């Protein structure tokens, strides 16, 4: 079984700023991590490898520094790492991003594609399903668990009300929740080894996708403006009877449309 895990390197802080001119991210100087849901996908892939035997490839699109995320994945036990990086891919919205990643995936043998449900910087949850569409593959999102039986997959999907059990067949795309499992740590040997292993660097041409459909050029959406939320004004504190307190709370909840 060949598994490709799509991951994203994300800033590990909420202290993120946007470029006021372009409305795009300023990524410099912020510590980076593997996106938590993507780590859930990685762990799931490695569990499948442990259980059934599999070749696991990790793929990311990002800046050259995303190399660090790939080396972490290698240290966790991944077999192959690919970094898709090119200025032509910059400023991409989810649709243009998904085209580039789908283009890269077409160059790789796979039975199963795993990705995190969503990244903590954008929180869109869009790229996984969009990749599935470009590749014409079935998808299940919000994955909690997966059983493989030959080409058939039986999955558990998280919903607002509980969960669903669904069945599909490979090749297919699943997006995974960070709560699906507890990601393993890198081994000491794995870390040492990871820095001697190759991370393949791919450019935009390698995706076989029309340049006009990639990056900012290929993005149907534009950030028109971005702004920080206004600071909360200091609230008021009341020393009143329980009855008056309840009145105050109810009227505030109504005012804020919470009830």
């Amino acid at each position, binding site marked *: 079984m060949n598994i490709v895990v799509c991951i994203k390197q994300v800033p590990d802080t909420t202290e993120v700023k946007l470029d006021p001119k372009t409305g795009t991210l300023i990524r410099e100087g912020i510590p980076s991590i593997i996106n938590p849901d993507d780590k859930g996908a990685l762990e799931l892939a490695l569990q499948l490898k442990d259980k059934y035997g599999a070749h696991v490839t990790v793929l990311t699109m990002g800046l050259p520094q995303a190399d660090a995320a790939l080396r972490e994945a290698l240290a966790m036990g991944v077999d192959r790492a690919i970094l898709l990086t090119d200025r032509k891919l910059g400023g991409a919205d989810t649709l243009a991003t998904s085209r580039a990643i789908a283009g890269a995936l077409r160059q790789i043998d796979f039975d199963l594609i795993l990705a995190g449900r969503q990244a903590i910087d954008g929180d869109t949850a869009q790229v996984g399903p969009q990749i599935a569409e470009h590749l014409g593959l079935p998808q299940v999102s919000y994955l909690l668990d997966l059983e493989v039986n030959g080409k058939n997959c039986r999955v558990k999907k998280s919903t*607002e009300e509980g969960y669903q*059990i669904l069945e599909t067949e490979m090749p297919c795309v699943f997006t995974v929740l960070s709560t699906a499992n507890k990601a393993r740590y890198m081994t000491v040997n794995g870390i040492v080894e990871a820095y001697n292993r190759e991370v393949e660097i791919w450019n935009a041409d390698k995706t076989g996708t029309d340049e006009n459909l990639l990056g900012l050029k290929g993005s149907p959406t534009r950030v028109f403006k971005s702004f920080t939320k206004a600071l909360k004004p200091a609230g008021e504190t009341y020393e009143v009877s329980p009855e008056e307190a309840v009145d105050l709370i109810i009227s505030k909840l109504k005012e804020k449309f919470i009830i």
Partner: protein
Amino acid sequence: MDKSEYKNVYVFIEQRDNVIQKVALELLGKAHDLAGALNEKVYAVLLGHNIADKAQELIAYGADHVLLAEDECLKDYITEPYTQAITQIIHDYKPSIFLIGATTIGRDLGPRLSARITTGLTADCTKLDISEDTKELMMTRPAFGGNIMATIMCTNHRPQMSTVRPGVMQKMAKDTSRKGEVENVKINFDKSKFKVKLVENVKVTSNKVDIADAKILVSGGRGVGNKEGFEMLGKLAEVLHGEVSSSRAMVDAGVMPHDRQVGQTGKTVRPNLYIANGISGAIQHLAGMEESEFIIAINKDKFAPIFKVADLGIVGDLYKIIPLLTERLKFELENR
């Protein structure tokens, strides 16, 4: 693309077990405003099986036109049949705006659709406006954990699509005298593409919800003191459809499990409503909850630091206030 061919504001009507979801009605309310600003109509897109009887309800909540597609394969949400149905509708009817609730269903369907149609999709919007000069849709959403708001536009593609957070938009008051049309739509499915089968849909009680995902948290600290106190908070949480969380003190004391702990060594939460009961507000606790949308603090000590981050502070005895509040809320919610 000739944008002038694309008209009207469409809403995907999410149903589960033939129950129209609240978010769909909220979106009809918002669509009504947007359509008003554009001098256009509101279209409700209702997919399901044996669901025609729900169409009038959608009209009462703001739809001018209901597109009804009924088929056995649309009974429960599955990505591919739903995507095929809506793709056909978008191609045939050419909406200018298409709104979807940002639920586990909408967030699965929206991106699949946007890639099939080749248009932009803005996720989890909390604000939608029509630009006064260009009449384009301005979609505002939080990013980076809510610290930054971004307004996104999709000016060269149609429809302008967005998923919208549940609970943000206001539904209209139900008006059963509103008039509208219901139109049956026949979908031509390509069933060879149906590769996913729903085996089982399991509903679990709400107390399993991760506190980090909860929209409403009723949280307790040292002032709550014991298990019985947390049971009292549980009743309030139940009425509000929220979850109970805890300060570190009560976890260390063994009263609450660790997965309910808010704060530096627990979870960071950003619910719409956080009610801090008997929590003094140590800096480690504040770090985990100060980003909550609306914070109510109830504490006996008027100098408690929690009041500095609270939007509404009540100095008083929570053992008197909480039962009263629970009863009042029950009454308010039943008589809406």
